[in-house]
């Protein structure tokens, strides 16, 4: 197992290297970040020359890539090209906010999804099953941004007509800089969490149901039943735990993907998260900020993929990694 992990990590390094290299080239060619300065009819050509030099825009792309790589290790991802500020504090701050609401929504989605998946599988073809499978289908078909917009509009309407503020529709706190774990923060995060939760829930409940059905129909469960074990024990001891295995993989992969920032959700609800940070950096073509984001999310995806595979191998004794 250990050799497998080490081998996977070693394989990831050149992949990360190439991926960041390609991304760097892509964003470098996306446009000149100094272009916006020219909107002032009296712009100073001296400044443009200075900044071209400071941002290394006069050097070939490959050299700039290695300068960036150097900055990553020596200067903790370097400084933003747009504001000149250190990037690492911004990344940790925004990542903290994103992690907060993603973790809550994933935990909720898992709890809900797993329980409903189990019940759906036990009571297959019942009304309960039909209703929740339809909801899952709907969850898959719903575009994230549309769901978020609908929630935002609905709760805005409620507030404007009845003057009761149930949930807030934007921002992290009522007053900037507010505490992270407060009732106010939860009121602000409720709608983004609901958005992500509904879609993840659809995924988990379907997976749980399917894998439960797989296990329920297997021989050893039939044996247990034939032996006279009570249905409850059969489900809890044999079915549930084995059915849980594929879910860990899916959950880990999903979480890894979401850590890239639920970009759309953050944009609609104006949350100071890493997805929002990425969109703003792209808009200003802040190369270092964009690369910082890409590196962090690529690492997150690789790490969680690895976790998914390891967890799968760990839990399922039939799988052996050499």
């Amino acid at each position, binding site marked *: 197992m250990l050799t497998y992990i080490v081998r996977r990590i070693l394989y990831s390094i050149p992949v990360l290297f190439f991926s960041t290299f390609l991304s760097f080239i892509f964003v470098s060619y*996306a*446009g*000149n970040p*100094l*272009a*916006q*300065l*020219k*909107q*002032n*009819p*009296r*712009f*100073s050509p*001296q*400044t443009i020359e*200075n900044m071209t030099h400071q941002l290394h825009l006069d050097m070939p792309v490959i050299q700039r890539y290695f300068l960036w790589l150097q900055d990553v290790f020596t200067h903790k991802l370097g400084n933003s090209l*747009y*504001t*000149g*500020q*250190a990037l690492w*504090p*911004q990344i*940790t*701050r925004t990542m*903290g*906010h994103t*992690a*907060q609401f993603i*973790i809550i929504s994933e*935990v909720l989605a898992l709890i809900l999804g797993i329980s409903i998946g189990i019940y759906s599988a036990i009571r297959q073809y019942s009304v309960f099953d039909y209703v929740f499978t339809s909801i899952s289908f709907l969850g898959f078909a719903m575009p994230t941004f549309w769901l978020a917009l609908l929630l*935002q509009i609905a709760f*805005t309407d409620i*507030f404007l007509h009845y003057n009761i*503020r149930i949930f807030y*529709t*934007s*921002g*992290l706190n009522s*007053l*900037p*800089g*507010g*505490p*992270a774990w407060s009732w106010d923060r939860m009121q602000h995060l409720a709608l983004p969490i609901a958005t992500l939760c509904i879609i993840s829930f659809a995924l988990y409940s379907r997976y749980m149901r399917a894998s439960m059905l797989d296990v329920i129909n297997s021989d050893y469960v039939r044996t247990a039943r034939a032996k006279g074990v009570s249905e409850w024990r059969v489900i809890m*001891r044999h079915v549930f*735990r*084995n059915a*849980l295995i594929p879910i*860990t993989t899916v959950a880990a992969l999903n979480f890894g993907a979401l850590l890239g920032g639920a970009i759309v959700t953050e944009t*609609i*609800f*104006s949350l*100071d998260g890493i997805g929002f940070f990425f969109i*703003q950096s792209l808009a200003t*073509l802040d190369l270092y900020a964009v690369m910082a984001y890409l590196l962090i999310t690529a690492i997150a995806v690789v790490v969680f993929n690895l976790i998914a595979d390891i967890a799968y191998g*760990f*839990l399922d*004794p039939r799988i052996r990694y050499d």
Partner: protein
Amino acid sequence: MHRRVWFLAAAVVAVLGLTGSAAAVTAGKSSSTAQSLHAAPFATAMANIPRTPAARAAKKTMVFGLEQTVTGFNLGNADQNAFYAAIVAGTPVIRGTYIINTKGKYLLDMASKVKATKKSLTIKIKKNANWNWLGHKPKPVTAADYIYTWKIITDPTSNVASAVGYSNIARAKAHGKKSVTFFWKKGQAFADYRDLFGYVYPGFALKGQKFNDYWHNCVCGNDGHPISNGPFYMSSYTQGQGMVLKKNPKWYGKKARLNSIAFKIITDTNSEIQAMRGGEVDAITPSPESALSTLVHQKNLVYSAVPSFTQEHWDIEVGPGGAPLLKKLYVRAAIARGMNRPSLIKALYGGIAPGLKPLNNTFYEFGSPAGGKFAYFKKYDFNPKKAIAGLKSHGCTGGPSSPDKNNSKVWTCGGQKTEFHFDTTTRQSRVQSSQIFKQQLMAIGIKINVGIHDPADFFGTILPNANFDIGEYAWIGGPDPSGFDAIYQCYNAAKNLGGSNYKRYCNKKVDKLIKKGEANFNSRKRTAQYQTAAKITSNEIAVIPLYAPPQIFVYKRALQGASKSNNPTSEGPTWNLQSWHWGS
């Protein structure tokens, strides 16, 4: 088997717990960076600001909504030269020689007297103008500060937004502490002197700092303590979330009536609107979006929309990179006459800026110098019949005989079709106006093919390479017409002239007038010269001026002293922040 599941579950809980607490810690962390400059954590400051409007009034504080995240407060720095940074760190905190009022008039602010001639510029500083640097004794504003400002802006390593005017100064001389004279370089007297030194730096407090590095997270001296020569100082700032200004008791003007003002960053216009309606913020200055119409008739709010000093216009390329037909004046005239500007303005801004009118002067945007007999572009007002007649009389064929909404025929003039490329950026209002104008022009037989581009591409490649037919975008101007010189001067890269003249318009007469006006200190003669230039450029349709996008300011009716605040110049609505107070 189950043991492994429990083990894994425990591992997951541990990881979640770690990440969760990390989230809590980092989310509450202040933005203090490794740099020596930082302000106190915003969280503690904001904790003292009450959540309800009534409580805020009792505590003499208010909350102002900002629509964009701020990247820094050094307004001279190219990176940070943004409208929203100016609202916070401009006139409320750092002031200069003049202040511009809502009518575009320059009023003496920190200076008691200014004398400008062809040879020199002399500024006499008010006796009681001082710097309040927290933790230090107050220091007067001196000539040394002015000289420091000039030097740092003309320093080639400083990334200034613009050094125009400052680079015309050859040398400086201080007369005691409160008077300074700047001598112009030979033949480079700068008549727009009132736009200089609108922002003065406290050199003594910034020793050891580099221009490009300071004031990213605060307005402070080199020890991190706030500094100000205005009615407020910046007491705290959290990146991405907001900042707090506190009353400066040592200011030389009429003391501020509010004790503190919090600025909260709300980037989404819809959320801003809600925050305003719901009482979360007390004032906002949003960018014009049609959703704002819901705020216009709210009983407890005052809604103000004035035309800004921005010129939204069409550039028509008459250089080699554009379509050959566009070089002909009659074609440009037909285009101008086919555009119904008032109808467009009504569609785009009718709900949020009811009285907005088209721009009709190519150098002046505001007030009396832009209207009346100076509205030179009015001769090209919407007149589709005349447009068609004009094309016909120059031998064009194949187009509609009268303006027709469903027309699909395109004119052919001199063997070429009147079909042109039109490029603009992704901004919603421009996408919409491109559609509206496309339909209007098709009705008179001129076809335009719309191309939408990212701003970086548009301003970085398409415009500077002069590789377009027609482009729509905006220039940020000001009360002084010389701000637009670089747009109309004949393009000469070597002499750094006409750098913003992407349309390659060139008229030697206009060049001469601009050059004279730039150095003419007789304001009456200067205005006459610029108006003549405006007349010529209008007649020749150098640009098609469209409108000045409205600047909108909405505030609670109970907030007094803000009725004359909506200032369309670069000062912004907080130009008289010190007179705001809660009334009944």
